[in-house]
Structures are given as structure tokens and as C-alpha cells.
């Protein structure tokens, strides 16, 4: 390992704390767009107009990684595009599920974290890391480097229109408590039972994939699982969720897991701290009532 190695952090978001935590050596951030970041030694900022994905060539030019350096990229839709461009440009292995990384070696969670793989590599490596909930700790002296992005043209792409609903702004990564709802719910309106409990315990509501894709009952941003959000809240309450690996891989790092299911053989009970076999239509209102009573003394 080189003593003077650099960890390059590529981001479009301020929530880079998990990347800073994994970083080794000097931290040099390449920030695309105008978000404010802290917790790094140097910043190269790239101004953009139009879709951020089109700026992959500029990102590649701004990351002057040397053999032994590592490049960590925020794992979101744009971050994955940058990571792909960087991996191809540096002929670098792409690492996901990074648990630990150093110059030339890493520990990776594979297949939704069911096994850990120890790898060694030559040269540069690119790692995708889930963003965190809060900005990295404040740091006062960051040297900002101007980057001459004009020398390279972005890919020719323009934004034609954007339709977003501000009310749909669920932030599961930041939530301390999450209630996950699954196929045990018979109708869309019934999810209100989970929302009522969520309201009294100050939790967000997430769901399994079938509720987003098969049924369209919930927004895509609420989807928890291996190809949706990976979360580690203080409390996760799984309601009407059987516990297939595609879902549990996204929630099994939660500090405490509570499972409510009418099937006592459901796999979710294997990873639960607290379990209740019962009909969620009876259990949820009773839990909401019990919490209210407790709060009212």
C-alpha cells in the first residue's frame, strides 16, 4: 500500500458520510452540481446544465486516480453511470456491497449480503456505496480546485421535462424507524393501518417489491430490498412480509427487527428480535392503541 494514497469520492449528493468512513488516505471529492459537502480534504467541483448522466466524460477527466487509489461513488442512478464510466476508463474492478476497503484489497457482501467475499486487486478500484442520512461532520479548511471541464464536451443530451411530486418525498435512508408492509395486506386502503401505527411511533412506511410493481399501491421510493433501498434503522417492523431474501437483504442490518405475520413458519421470524403470529388486521390497531395508551401515561 502506498503511504500517499488518495480516496476519490464522486457524488451528486451531500450525504457522503458512509463514503468518508470507508475512505483511506487523502479524501478528494469530485462534486457534480451544486451540493455542499464536508468531511473531505479537497474538492473538485463540476458545474452542469442538463442531465447529470451526460457529464460522465468530465467526471472521468476530473478523477486523476493513480494505481493504488480507490474511487468511491455514491450509489444512486447517476452515481452508477459515473462508476461505470470510471471502471471502463481505469480498467478497474467494480465493487459493490463494500464492507471494508483498502489499497489493493476489499471485503464485499455478495448476493444481497448472504456471503462475504475477500478480494485483492491491482491498480485502481471503483466502489459503489449507499449514501447516508446526514452530511459528514463539518470541516473548515477544504481546498477547492477549479476544474476545466470545457475542454471535454458532455454527451449530447437535454432535459425535456420533469414531473415530480414533492409530497412523495419519502426518505427511508434517513428514517430511524420504519414499518415495512408486504403482501399480507389485502387492499391498498388497508396500508392505512400501518400508517396509523407509523404516525404514533414516528416511523416511515416502506414496502416490499410486489406492492410497488405488481400492485402499484406505493411509490417506488418506498421499496425496500436488494434492488430498492438498503436501510439500517434503529427499528424495523415487518408486517405481512414473508421474509424472502430479496427483501431481507435490504433490511437485515436494522438494529431491532419486529415481525408480524399470520404464518408461524414465515422466514421473517428467523431474523426477528420480536415476533407475533397473528392477523395484522387485528394486531396493528391494537398496537396503535397500546402505544397511544402508553404515551398518555
Amino acid at each position, binding site marked *: 500500500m502506498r503511504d500517499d494514497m488518495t480516496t476519490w469520492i464522486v457524488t451528486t449528493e451531500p450525504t457522503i458520510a458512509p463514503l468518508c468512513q470507508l475512505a483511506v488516505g487523502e479524501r478528494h471529492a469530485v462534486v457534480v452540481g451544486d451540493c455542499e459537502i464536508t468531511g473531505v480534504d479537497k474538492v473538485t467541483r463540476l458545474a452542469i446544465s442538463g*442531465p447529470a*448522466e451526460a457529464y*460522465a466524460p468530465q467526471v472521468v477527466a476530473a478523477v486523476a486516480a493513480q494505481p493504488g487509489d480507490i474511487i468511491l461513488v455514491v450509489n444512486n*442512478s447517476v452515481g*452508477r*453511470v459515473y*462508476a*461505470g*464510466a470510471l*471502471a*471502463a476508463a481505469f480498467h478497474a*474492478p*467494480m465493487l*459493490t*456491497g463494500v464492507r471494508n476497503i483498502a489499497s489493493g*484489497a476489499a471485503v464485499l*457482501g*455478495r*448476493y444481497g449480503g448472504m*456471503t*462475504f*467475499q*475477500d*478480494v*485483492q*486487486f*491491482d491498480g485502481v478500484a471503483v466502489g*459503489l456505496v449507499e449514501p447516508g442520512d446526514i452530511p459528514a461532520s463539518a470541516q473548515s479548511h477544504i481546498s477547492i480546485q477549479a476544474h476545466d471541464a470545457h475542454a471535454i464536451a458532455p*454527451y*449530447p*443530451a*437535454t*432535459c*425535456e*421535462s420533469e*414531473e*415530480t*411530486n414533492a409530497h*412523495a*418525498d419519502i426518505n427511508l435512508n434517513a428514517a430511524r424507524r420504519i414499518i415495512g408492509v408486504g403482501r399480507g395486506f389485502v387492499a391498498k386502503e388497508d396500508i392505512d393501518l400501518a400508517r396509523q401505527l407509523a404516525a404514533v*411511533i414516528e416511523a416511515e412506511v416502506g414496502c416490499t*417489491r410486489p406492492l410497488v*410493481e405488481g400492485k402499484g399501491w406505493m411509490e*417506488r421510493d418506498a421499496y425496500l430490498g436488494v*434492488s430498492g433501498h438498503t436501510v439500517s434503522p434503529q427499528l424495523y417492523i415487518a408486517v405481512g412480509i414473508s421474509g*424472502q431474501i430479496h427483501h431481507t437483504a435490504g433490511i437485515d442490518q436494522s438494529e*431491532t427487527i419486529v415481525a408480524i405475520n399470520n404464518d408461524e413458519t414465515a422466514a421473517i*421470524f*428467523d*431474523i*426477528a*428480535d*420480536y415476533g*407475533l403470529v397473528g392477523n395484522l388486521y387485528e394486531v*396493528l390497531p*391494537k*398496537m396503535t392503541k*397500546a*402505544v397511544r395508551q*402508553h404515551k398518555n401515561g
Partner: protein
Amino acid sequence: MNIAVAYKYAPNPQDARVQPDGQVDWSRAKPAVSENDPVAIEMGRRVAAACGAQLIGVCVGPQIVGAAMARKNAMSRGFDRGIILADDQSAQWNSTQIASALASLIQRAEDVTLVVAGDSSIDDAQGVVPAIIAGYLQWSAFLDVIDCEPTDDGYRITQRVHGGTRTVRVSGPCVIATTSDAVTPAVPSMKDILAAGKKPVDVLTASDIDCDDIGITTVGYRKPPVHQRKKRMFSHADELVAALYEDEVL
């Protein structure tokens, strides 16, 4: 003009077991066209139909992906032809090397202006291969795509973004990855399955193509540290809530 769809033949991790040494036993898991790839194939098929293009399936995997059964399974979903790299060596490849091989197959297909892929494979679910293919081709890439239509000089792409959708207009070639629910894939009919056997498929090995040799080696596997769970069971909601307060979970 050609449109390529990158698909994977993969086993379902639901049927895999982790052995005590951390190695994954896939022997009970039957590989098939990866769960969400039919969505990408369907979107590719629609774009190809709209602009009169040929639809080409490209795939990298172990020898089994070149076998008659796997070829038929894939070709019955609407491809005009296929270019497949079937080599057991690929089982050891990192996703960068897989993507580099796929980019090589796409270049071999010639005159490709759009590459479509699924959001991620069912087994590894990393969601990185489409973006690395774009990196090798030096094309733009857009992920979470729910709609794509050809324009005079490129494509109009609608993506799912946080809390909504965004439409982007791209000039020139590009790579897109679909969401898993972008379109509903057609189920192959008996006629499609019978016709699939007659579609031309080039089956290649690693020595036939240029692909980037990525220096990464697996030192070993191990079982992840088990998060010890309390596994306390309750029969009444009141008792459960009381325990959660008592243990200061709530």
C-alpha cells in the same frame, strides 16, 4: 440499424444455500433468463419495431448459455438473432470484465445505436453492468428508464427519478437500463418457441473476442457475522408493545 439487448442467464438466490465456509451452493438453483430481463427485451422489441431495426440479443455466461435450451428460451422472446459468449471462464469475471465482453459483442453486431438492459440481475443484483457497457462504448447511459422512443437523431427517454419522472432527449447512441416494471413482457407463444430454434445465434468463446482483463482475485469467502436476534415470540399485541417499551426499543 440494430438494437441490442444485454440479457443474463442466472440462477435465483432464493434456491442457493450458503455453506459453512461462506461458499454459495447453487446446485439446487436452476438458471433461466434473469427475472427482469424480459422487460428489457420487450422495450427493445418495441423500439426496434418503431424504427424498423433488427433486435439482437447479447449474453455472456458459462457454457450453458450457449446450449440449445438456453438459446431457445432467450430467442423466443422476440430477438431476430443472438451473439452469445458461452465460456466457463466468465464465471470468475468481475462485472467490469463481463461488461467489457458485452461491449465487444455489441461492437461485433455492428451498427448498434441503442443498448437496452434490465435493472439488475436476479443473482448479483448489482445494477452496474449497463453503465460499464456505456463506459466501454463511450456512450451516454440512463438508468431507471420506463419509456424509450426513437427520434430523428437519437432517443427520447423517460426515466423514473426521485418522486416522479423525467424525460431526456439524447442525440446519438446510448445505453439504457429499464426499471423492472417499465413494460409488461409478452409471454412467448408456442409459435415463438418453435421459431426460436431457427434464429441465427453466434456462440463464441472468450478467445474469440477482445475483452479487458481486470486484475481482481478472490482470496476467499466467509459467512457474514450473524446478527444475533432475540427471537422472542408474543401472542398479544399489548404484550409486544409492553416489551418494546421495557427494552427501550420504543
